[in-house]
């Protein structure tokens, strides 16, 4: 099944070892960004080159891979990455969260609670949570070293002052293990609580920025907030039009050009499971 023209999982073994070393270091220092020698991948930056390299480095022949983009298994990006690994590694692929051992994702964490032994691989466009606040990377490194995150707090202050409650809907920064400020990649704030004390291992890869970071299982992950403006995950106040869920994260879909719209689960696997369960119950 594996394309014989490629090494297993595309990357050469030396590169995988280099990335695994970075991963081990990242796991040892939760939330801390580790530089790595990102390779050119057969797809453009912004399409998940960081995530793909991480996945390629940890993938074994017995793994079952799931790839989602904005929660969906059937978007172009998810489909091509899944197909890519099927071709170069010959591994099993799935759309079922429960069956997957590795889940590569862009922008979401599945609704179904993750379990021990599962690994999430996040595609990260910008790993530096202080990026918009302090443009000098040498200075952001120093701020991380000193644990000086007042700037991020200032950003949060500005968000509340300008937009009132809610603040950033995506990429809401988190404190990992009470030490490092981390960008959870552009997942919605709704998913932030899923990072906290998760039984699964969370790996983050940024290809263009050449950084890897990680949250080991059962690690404290706390969203930045103010005492009088506690962090609150938000979801659209609707039920899913397809499965009726009132707890899942919803996508808003514009259905016509007259303002018609509907809300459906962003997690397609979760939605399908719900629908099946409903049918079974009927």
């Amino acid at each position, binding site marked *: 099944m594996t394309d014989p023209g490629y090494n297993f999982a595309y990357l050469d073994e030396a590169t995988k070892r280099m990335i695994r070393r970075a991963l081990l270091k990242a796991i040892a220092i939760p939330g801390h960004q580790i530089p790595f020698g990102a390779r050119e991948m057969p797809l453009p930056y912004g399409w998940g080159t960081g995530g793909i390299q991480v996945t390629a480095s940890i993938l074994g022949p017995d793994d079952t891979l799931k790839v989602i983009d904005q929660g969906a298994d059937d978007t172009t990006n998810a489909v091509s990455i899944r197909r890519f690994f099927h071709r170069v590694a010959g591994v099993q692929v799935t759309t079922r969260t429960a069956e997957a051992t590795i889940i590569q994702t862009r922008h979401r964490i599945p609704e179904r609670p993750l379990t021990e032994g599962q690994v999430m691989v996040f595609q990260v466009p910008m790993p530096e949570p202080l990026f918009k606040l302090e443009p000098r990377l040498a200075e952001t490194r120093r701020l991380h070293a000193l644990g*000086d995150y007042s700037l991020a707090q*200032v950003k949060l*202050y500005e968000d509340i002052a300008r937009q009132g409650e809610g603040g950033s809907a995506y990429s809401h920064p988190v404190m990992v293990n009470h030490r490092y400020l981390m960008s959870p990649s552009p997942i919605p704030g709704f998913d932030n609580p899923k990072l906290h004390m998760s039984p699964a291992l969370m790996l983050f890869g940024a290809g263009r920025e050449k950084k890897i970071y990680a949250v080991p299982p059962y690690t404290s992950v706390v969203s930045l907030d*103010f005492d009088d403006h506690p962090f609150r995950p938000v979801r659209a106040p609707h039920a899913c039009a397809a499965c009726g869920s009132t707890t899942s994260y919803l996508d808003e879909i514009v259905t016509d050009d007259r303002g018609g719209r509907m809300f459906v689960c962003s997690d397609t696997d979760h939605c399908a499971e719900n629908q099946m369960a409903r049918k079974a119950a009927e």
Partner: protein
Amino acid sequence: MSPILEGQNLALRFVAVRALDDVSLALWPGEVVAIVGESGSGKSTLLRVLAGLAAPQAGRVLYHDADGAAQDVHALREAERRTLMRRDWGFVHQNARDGLRMGVSAGGNIGERLMAAGGRHYGNIRTAAAEWMARVEMDPARMDEAPRNFSGGMQQRLQIARCLVTRPRLVFMDEPTGGLDVSVQARLLDLIRSLVAELGLAVLFVTHDIAAARLLAHRIVVMRHGRIVEEGLADRVLDDPQHPYTQLLVASVLAA
């Protein structure tokens, strides 16, 4: 009582230029000292070295904290020095761009030091920011505006509010009124004067404006070619200058 800050035998050379040549200076709690001199006299370098922003090649800077412990400023670890700088000290830059975050609102600028000190209550931070805007004669209703919306004089006042909100014991100022219109300068000087007296701050400031030095300072230090050529009571240095250079400096002002 001990000085709040002591520079001891400070020396610093830039290639062929002696920016600081064996300079010693003590600042006492509640004392306002002006460092005057022309461009290139080393006055700004001295300020930066005393404020921990530039390291001397010889000599040391001792800060006596509120508990009376002496800390060698340049021997501190960076984390400790940064903590010191934003808890016990303030620095007002000549250019507001160096002292403010231009992309952050006035309230956020003032609140940053509170947040750095662990402030995590949004409402309290805003209350403090509003209070300090009023104290520096700015309209608290404008606290969500960015600094670029404010005039030069207001930006300087905002910088002062940002420094003072954490109630530092020691404030450094580098030409705080430089580049401002004369009428704006007078207002700013007066504001600084009253805040300094009210809060009992120790202030070390650099200026080439003799009038500002007379108005604000208890003591004046005259620098030339990297050395202190004269120092003493502000009015005595200006009314009875001894060193030829001080006489020239004072005469130049009176002639202007």
